[in-house]
């Protein structure tokens, strides 16, 4: 496991949306997927995932459905709703704008001012 970064506030929701946008996942799967796609760089406290999932479900950005897991147990699967997809697109764009702006700002050399 490499060095893990603290999660910025508000980014967990975006990460969850991204994770379930690839394919429907149960809660544990969401956690694993985020760790996988972030290259294990992001550490998410186990317990904090569920309130976020419930909040997103309440906002109807994701939809839940009961299904059967790989090891044949009943599990709740989350998938992205249309509103969620829209939100993901907007937030991703916003995030990228912010990231490039930050990068540009931080890379500024004295000569460029």
């Amino acid at each position: 496991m490499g060095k893990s970064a603290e999660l910025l506030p508000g980014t967990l929701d975006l990460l969850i949306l991204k994770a379930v946008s690839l394919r429907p996942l149960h809660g544990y799967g969401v956690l694993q997927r985020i760790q996988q796609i972030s290259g294990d760089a992001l550490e998410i406290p186990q317990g904090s995932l569920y309130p976020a999932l419930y909040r997103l479900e309440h906002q109807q950005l994701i939809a839940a459905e009961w299904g059967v897991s790989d090891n044949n147990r009943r599990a709740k699967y989350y998938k992205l709703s249309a509103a969620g997809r829209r939100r993901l697109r907007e937030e991703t764009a916003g995030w990228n704008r912010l990231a490039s702006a930050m990068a540009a700002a931080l890379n500024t050399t004295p000569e460029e001012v």
Partner: protein
Amino acid sequence: MLRRLRSLFRVLTSRRDFEEGMSGELRFHIDQLTEDLARSGVPRQEAARRARMEFGSLNAVAEECREARGLNPFDELIRQLRHAARWLRKTPGFTATALMTLAVCLGANITIFAVVDSILLRPLPFPEASRLVTVFNTYPKAGVDRDGSSIANYYERRGRIPAFAAVAMYSYGTAVVGEAGSIEREEITRVSPDFFSTLGTGPAMGRSFTDEETSDQTDKIVILTDAYWREHFNADPQVIGKQLRMDGTWNTVAGVLPPGFRFLSSAARLYAPLPSRPEDRSSRQRHSGGNTRQMIARLNPGATLAQAQAQIDAQNATLEADDPQAKMMADAGFRSVVASLHADHVRSIRPVVLWMQAGAMVLLLIGGVNLTNLLLIRASSRLKEVAVRQALGASRRRIISEAIVETTLLTLVGGLLGLVAGAGGIRLLSVLGADRLPLGSDIAFDARLACIAVLGAIAMGLALAAPVAWFSLRGHMTVAIQSETRGGTPSRAAQNLRHGFTVAQIALAMILLTSAGLLGLSLERAMAVSPGFRPDHVLTAQIAVPWNRYPNWPARLAFNERLLNGMARQPGVSAAGVVNNVPFSGNSGKSAATVEGHPRLPGESPRGHYSYGVDGDYFAAMGFSLLEGRFLTADDSRRSARFCVVDEDFARYYWPHGSALGQRLFVGSEAATGAQSFTVVGVVSAAKQAGLTDQTAQGAVYYPYALRTDDKLFLVVRTSIQPESLGLALQKTVRQIDPELPVTDIRSMDTRIADSLVAQRSPALVASVFSLIALLLIAVGVYGVLSYAVAQRRREIGVRMALGARPDQIRSQFLWRAIRLLAAGEMLGLTGAWLTGRAMRTLLFQVPPLHAATFTAAAGVIGVVSVAACLLPAHRAARVSPMEALADQ
């Protein structure tokens, strides 16, 4: 927002599923984590422990999830509701008292509000009903306040008053409907062609009347109400064009009105054209409204009553310019008044209804004060608990919301009980005759009323929570904790508040009781008024004698003769007579008479008098006393001599110093030739026509029946037996003479008089019921407050007793305290009662608003009840055992 509410609603409706799903999901996560850890080589038990550790507190996560789902406020509410319910169950005595108080007070308000709502608040059932007005002629100086409108008025105003979009006439009446031999009598309203278009609600099927259908020959058509159509035509869709026999002639059905059509309080199920002759429409007949024909109009959008009134006044002035009668009408104070149709229809009942609502509100206030006191007592017993909880971090918001949940739960349950009580009250009202009030038959218990009642209960809950919350949070936690632990004397502020409420309660009860007393006294005084004849043992009935069956005088007189002879043969009958309009018939139309040798002085208005046509032994049957001369007899109607009898009031007005006998008078407002005069042959006692509380000495003239008649008559029979028992014999007698004549309105004279007092009786009755409840409430209130004071000071009393105080000293100390409160409350109440009495003067009859005996009696009754209520607690105080009281804490 809406989406979230929907999602919340889904979760709330399947709350159990939500909880199960959530715990299943969280368990699944921990199991998966355990398995992954185990697979990576951690021993199974260690893996399970580590998974639980990493996950954190299950409860905390679950709580956060619930919050994320927006469930927290609801959980909190449910917790508080449970708590409040447990609290109410734990103190059944308090809960029962509070619920009974609420049920009675809210029930009374719901009942009366149902009346206010249906009579005053709900608009008439027509589109834009606020634009509907009525126009009537008034001649106040002649003693004629309302004279309807004339056909001439209608034709003069139609299309000529810019403020009116439409003008129409109507006239109530009855008709015998059905095949020959039928005596089924239907109420029928005769209307001008534009009646339905003025109301804005026309026939649902068929057509309305036309302008051509307004003469005696062309008016043989009829419009049915939905109810009549269903009942008598089996809801036949082909009914248009069918024939209906009315008063012996065939009428063509032109239309059917929509379901629920109802004009004001009329029970008419048939509508026919209002016919008139060309001479009725001429300007000479302008003042012949006679209060049987009424005008309605619809204001143009944007037009006001004042504009319409100004335009009517202007038109009247123009028309009167070339009217020979103008001078006399002006002397009579003639005016045409424009008034809102709804307001005008309910004007007589409006103050009564509003006063009853005010009484109910006072009752609610007394009950509310009672509850507040009881709740404050409870709150002070929990003051310590609240202070400790606040010290432990309970927020003020939480304390307030708890108070609100508790009181609102109480008032909601009380409100539901009140709805039951109100439904009962509404039924009781209809037994008392409320459906005879204008628009009274619409009084009903419906969803609208229930909603308003529930909202009212919630509002009351919030109102009750305010003092409780204020009291609980009144700072000084440490003081509360300390004072209560020491079991010392109660805080001054709380005690003052409770005492203030008790004083207010007694004052309000005082107002209710005196009002009830004043109204009851008015009723008693009204009932004591002599009607001017002897109403006992008199049976009266109305018989319609249509002109087309009895077209001339000999035929009509012959019918009377057979009728009177038939009745005279019945057992116990001592006298029988016929009159065109019996006193207390509900019709008090007046007409003019002119006395020979009494020219109207300048400025003196022509006078309207009651005028009657009598046959048979009418005066003897009614029990009039003869003051001078002789009665009219049956012979007078059958001779060419023109005699009349006048009453005391009439004689006193025209011949204050001499005898009325031998004087001559004329029918109408102008003296005619000598041959048309009537010679006065007798003076009788003055009878009340409109009601016992009728104060004006209107004067009356009794003419021989042949010269003064309508198409219906009243039969009056004096009997030595119970008058009602003669009813069947009366109907049989009429049937033997003519089976087609309907007999209606069979009532004893006593019943007529009693029925006429409904406007006095119902407020008096309602006020008495309210007063009784108020007395009960103050008894409960005083008892509660004093009991609490005794319980709270047990310790102090114990100490004093131990130091040698005598029990009767303790007892009188508490009694004196109660009496001081009582005196303050009664003083305050006296002032309020005096103001109330003055304000409701219109409802009083021969009773001054400041009636010493009533006030004293009310003060006495309240005094006795309150002192009785504090005897038990005072006695209990005197029996406190010093040992027990000191050992208590």
